[in-house]
């Protein structure tokens, strides 16, 4: 468990706090560097729209559960802390789902398939354990938002490739004209399989580490 630093009064958007938002976008990306949340990155990236919805949901859940956990972090018994974290996440997701079903039914229909995927997303639990348990609420909230954004960025990039090459469309709009299909072009079926997502993420990891040598693990 991370050691809690002595409380220092930080301005709300100090450099340190801003880095909580920006680091997970690149140098500490949850998918490509922390290697978390891979499962859903493979499952929901066949198209851009569900990838985007999933990203928004994860941003919200990670941020809120980071906040909730941080608020009660000093009261959680150590031996059951993972269970407590899971309860916080699950409760949050179920509450959100219930409210959506009551007030914006159409959106809840879109989201209900994601609910299971969000609760089991390693990123959420990973950040609770690595950050929220040892940091104050505001930084925890920012960390949650930042990691959600980093996750979302990768998801949308992978989805753009998979939807375009696998279905010839983007956000549902057909981009490749019928003429191209008639001339012999065909959609890449492999792109619709999770294997393709794995390859794409591998390529992103490779490009990221080529660009920033510091990220290469010293083995």
């Amino acid at each position: 468990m991370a050691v809690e630093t002595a409380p220092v009064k930080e301005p709300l958007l100090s450099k340190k706090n801003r880095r909580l938002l920006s680091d997970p976008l690149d140098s500490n990306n949850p998918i490509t560097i922390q290697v978390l949340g891979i499962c859903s990155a493979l499952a929901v990236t066949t198209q851009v729209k569900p990838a985007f919805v999933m990203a928004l949901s994860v941003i919200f859940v990670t941020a809120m559960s980071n906040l909730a956990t941080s608020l009660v972090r000093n009261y959680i018994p150590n031996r059951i802390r993972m269970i407590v974290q899971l309860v916080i996440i699950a409760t949050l997701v179920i509450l959100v789902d219930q409210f959506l079903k009551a007030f914006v039914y159409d959106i809840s229909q879109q989201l209900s398939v994601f609910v299971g995927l969000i609760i089991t997303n390693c990123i959420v639990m990973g950040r609770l354990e690595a950050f929220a348990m040892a940091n104050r609420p505001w930084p925890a909230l920012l960390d949650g938002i930042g990691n959600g954004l980093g996750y979302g960025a990768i998801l949308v990039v992978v989805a753009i490739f998979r939807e375009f090459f696998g279905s010839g469309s983007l956000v549902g709009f057909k981009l490749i004209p019928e003429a191209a299909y008639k001339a012999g072009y065909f959609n890449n079926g492999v792109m619709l399989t999770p294997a393709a997502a794995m390859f794409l993420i591998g390529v992103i990891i490779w490009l990221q580490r080529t660009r920033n040598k510091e990220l290469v693990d010293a083995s």
Partner: protein
Amino acid sequence: MPNTNTNGYTIGFAIGMTVLVAVLLAGVATALKPMQDKNQLLDAKKKILTTVGYNTETMKNKEVEATFNEKITSTVVNYKGEELEKEDALKIDVIKEAKLKAEDRRLPLFVYKEGGKILYIASLKGSGLWDWISSYVAIQSDFNTIESIVFDHKAETPGLGAEIKERKSFKEQFAGKKLYDESGNWVSITVKKGEGNLLNEHTVDGITGATMTSVGVEDMLKSNLKLYEAYFDKLKNLQKEKI
């Protein structure tokens, strides 16, 4: 601050948290249930109106309610073709009914009358890859030709199985397809796998990468739509008598 590592505190915390969360979730679910049920009912009405040709996305809720009340009547039948007087089609949960044996199920049927056109809309449940799938299928008064179909599902994969609900081109394939062959045998609709299939009036193309869901759709129509056959035969005979 109490020592959080003692057995007593740990057990106490666990119990306290469980009770708190249980009360919170149960309370919220109960409080919101009336609104959720209302939404679900409205959604069912929207789906039914969609199968008979209305563009419910542009309609206001009040309009949906009014149109539904005006144009749609309903009945509940069983597999023997008998009408069940005391049942309300809108109150029947086909997901729950599907757990009963086919002989015991209550089958909701909606009827749309406009001008000289009559459409019969059945409410079906099937099994997808992960959980249930459902559909409303509107059938023309020859009890053979499909007018339109809409799908829903609980947990199919977004971008794959979930496409049965989202993808217009998949749903539109069903329009005009026939359930009986030339000799009058029940063949239902076959959902074909692979690309470049030669389709006829009993086949549609499946969704690539969603084999199990597509199979689920096929089975749902083949087994569950067939349960309405006795009632449809009854109506067919009534039609002949009128001529």
